[in-house]
């Protein structure tokens, strides 16, 4: 975690102490980083003036190369050059190979997770993504000539828990303090919403290379409330290319041999043709063959539109469903925002305009709009904009449920529930003396376990032995503002906190992350220790600062003398420890204060809520 400066609540840091928050769009094809300078969010360019960083990483024995150089190598060195790694995040090897048959990579065979065997060693999707994030972090720090405090990283709204966790792990590995994971369409809405001081309902139509999202938001006095989100995590502009290649194969009667051999060239030609047809009425689809011959077919705009018609129609159907989920009619939608490179395709714009009965907004570059929105949010979260009214209320994109008898899924938290959210569910034992039980957590909308995504299986252990059905185990599912799940459990009659071992189905264990983090750090163990010590000291002074001001405000009113003394003693101890003690002691001392001040903190919060709702403004408290 980065070191934070401390300012009195309500007081902004002095200008020269301005903290730097960046927004990162970690895209399938390209990635970007942005920040707010002089009140305006802009994406940052590399030393050659390029804003888009191709999301490509090449591993060789000597080095790791990220970006356009790596992209250039993807044809000549496909095995060691990882392209579009975002598709593999939080996925099992089985998922990956079932989805994409022609991948050029060498996957480690005995692993459940996809692990790329490269000239630079074995790497997983989290590590590959962390290289892209590191490159963006370096770019930002070089361009701003300062260290960044934290980052808001965007993810597709439709990303499930495993994919979100993977993204966050990658950031941790890159040494980035994640302020928030933000849904891409929500980020786009911020970029447009703050721009135009919009009020009312807006739809965000986000068609990227590999994913499609549609979100419906309500804007009211700076509050962005996501009403519903939907889409298809396996539909994007790449599918347009695919459909065009299929068409060319049929028209030219290409045999399987040619199809296989020229797969990459066919896809590239399709992409080029698609892009040409944005402005032209027709374009030649050309592939040079090694024998000097050439595949050449003229594609008109009308033909292309027909080829992709059903794909576009399926995005419109998703828009319709999502409007219904949001309980909003087409007429109530004030504006529709276009995000993602694939929304440049004219027929996409036409169909979206026709469905929503209004011209879509395209004034912000669809490639940059997500990063810009993330930058604005990051600036607010680091505390540069204390007067901002902006608040984002996002939703859980996919329902969370549990496996029940017969391989069925029982929904615990339905999709489109505003997050953070906590829901408890009670279980009981079915055998006498049972001391453990298995819980299987799933995400998705289908009824069968096999059709949903397995997030985690864990066992509740150390249950007190009782007769069957007597134990009441309360399992609490908590989803935080990043859309990440956390599970806790307790046996109610005895108060025994059951031990939970969450084993992510597809992803990395905390210990694996720590291992990677350690091995990725070139500095010695001492540096690590020094850094941790410093972090604890900073945390201690932060806790002290917060408690002193809290006590000054409410200490007399909300605490008895005895209670006050206990807290004062603990704070004095912490102040001493922060100066003199070792890391572990400071940590314990912070925990002690934390424990002893919990009730006080809760009382303060309730008091301020009561005051606010009884008509006083928040500032008066």
């Amino acid at each position: 975690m980065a070191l934070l400066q401390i300012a009195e609540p309500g007081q902004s840091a002095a200008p020269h102490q301005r903290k730097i928050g960046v927004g990162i769009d970690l895209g399938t094809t390209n990635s970007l980083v942005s920040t707010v300078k002089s009140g305006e969010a802009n994406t940052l360019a590399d030393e050659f003036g390029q804003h888009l960083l191709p999301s490509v990483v090449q591993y060789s024995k000597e080095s790791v190369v990220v970006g356009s150089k790596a992209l250039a190598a993807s044809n000549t060195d496909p095995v060691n050059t990882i392209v579009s790694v975002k598709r593999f995040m939080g996925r099992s090897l089985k998922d990956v190979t079932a989805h994409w048959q022609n991948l050029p990579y060498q996957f480690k065979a005995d692993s459940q997770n996809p692990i790329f065997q490269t000239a630079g060693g074995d790497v997983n999707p989290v590590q590959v993504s962390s290289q892209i994030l590191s490159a963006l972090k370096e770019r930002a720090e070089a361009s701003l000539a300062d260290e960044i405090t934290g980052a808001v990283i965007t993810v597709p709204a439709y990303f499930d828990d495993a994919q979100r966790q993977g993204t966050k792990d990658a950031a941790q590995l890159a040494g980035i303090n994640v302020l928030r994971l933000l849904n891409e369409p929500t980020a786009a809405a911020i970029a447009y919403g703050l721009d135009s001081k919009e009020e009312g309902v807006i739809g965000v139509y986000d068609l990227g290379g590999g994913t499609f999202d549609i979100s419906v938001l309500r804007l009211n006095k700076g509050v962005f409330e996501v009403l519903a989100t939907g889409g298809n995590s396996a539909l994007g502009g790449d599918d347009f290319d695919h459909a065009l290649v299929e068409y060319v194969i049929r028209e030219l009667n290409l045999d399987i041999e040619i199809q296989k051999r020229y797969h990459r060239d066919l896809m590239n030609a399709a992409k080029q043709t698609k892009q040409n047809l944005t402005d032209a009425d027709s374009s030649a689809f050309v592939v040079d063959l090694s024998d000097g011959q050439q595949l050449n077919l003229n594609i008109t705009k009308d033909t292309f539109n027909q080829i992709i018609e059903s794909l576009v129609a399926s995005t419109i159907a998703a828009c319709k469903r999502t409007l219904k989920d949001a309980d909003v009619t087409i007429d109530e939608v004030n504006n529709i925002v276009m995000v993602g490179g694939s929304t440049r395709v004219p027929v996409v714009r036409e169909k979206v305009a026709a469905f929503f009965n209004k011209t879509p907004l395209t004034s912000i570059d669809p490639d940059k709009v997500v990063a810009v929105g993330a930058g604005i949010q990051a600036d607010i979260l680091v505390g540069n904009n204390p007067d901002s009214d902006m608040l984002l209320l996002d939703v859980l994109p996919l329902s969370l449920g549990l496996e029940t008898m017969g391989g069925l899924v029982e929904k615990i938290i339905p999709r489109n529930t505003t997050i953070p959210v906590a829901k408890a569910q009670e279980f009981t034992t079915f055998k006498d003396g049972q001391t453990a039980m298995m819980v299987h957590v799933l995400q998705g909308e289908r009824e069968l376990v096999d059709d949903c995504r397995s997030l985690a299986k864990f066992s509740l252990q150390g249950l007190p032995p009782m007769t069957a059905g007597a134990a009441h185990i309360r399992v609490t599912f908590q989803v935080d503002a990043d859309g990440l799940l956390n599970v806790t459990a307790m046996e109610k009659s005895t108060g025994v906190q059951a031990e939970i071992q969450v084993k992510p189905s597809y992803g990395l264990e905390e210990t694996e992350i720590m291992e990677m983090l350690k091995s990725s750090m070139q500095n010695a163990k001492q540096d690590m220790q020094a850094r941790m010590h410093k972090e604890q000291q900073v945390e201690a002074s932060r806790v002290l600062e917060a408690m002193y001001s809290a006590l000054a405000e409410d200490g007399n009113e909300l605490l008895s003398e005895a209670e006050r003394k206990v807290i004062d003693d603990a704070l004095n101890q912490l102040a001493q420890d922060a100066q003199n003690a070792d890391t572990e002691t400071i940590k314990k001392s912070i925990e002690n204060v934390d424990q002893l001040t919990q009730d006080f903190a809760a009382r303060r919060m309730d008091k301020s809520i009561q005051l606010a709702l009884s008509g006083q403004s928040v500032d008066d408290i």
Partner: protein
Amino acid sequence: MNYFSLYNLPEQFEVDLDKLKQNYQTLQKMTHPDRFANASDQQKRLTMQKNAQVNDAYTVLKSPIARAEHLLQLRGLELASEQETVGNVEFLMQQMEWRESLEDANDVASLQLLAKQSDDDIQAQTQALSALLATQTDEDNKTAAEKLREMKFLFKFKSEIESKLDGLDA
């Protein structure tokens, strides 16, 4: 947790929805994790729990069924985990009839007619429920719980009509 007092609303079935919405925004601005991005871990934890309650309470107070259920729960009648089923034979007979008409309805017009009937019925039941909850007697609370069970049927029926309508639409 009393959701009415969290939202500073009177503990009754009738809710001022504008006030609810307004207080929702105020509570969000006070408890959302984004407002505590730089706070201590303790504060983060505390506000996240509070914010989750704010969200859950809003969902509950918005919906007539969930609101009535919460109100009964505050009065000591737990419906969520109960095994009790609807005992009103007349009601069940009527439900069966309606289900048959839903099966027979295959065009938009007849489905819309059913939807209208179902809406009227829900409205009538909601009024009855409201009156029962207002008296606060044990007996009326029990009858209200019975009404609530019936209303769950009605809402389920309504959503089945809607999904059949959607199917025709597509």
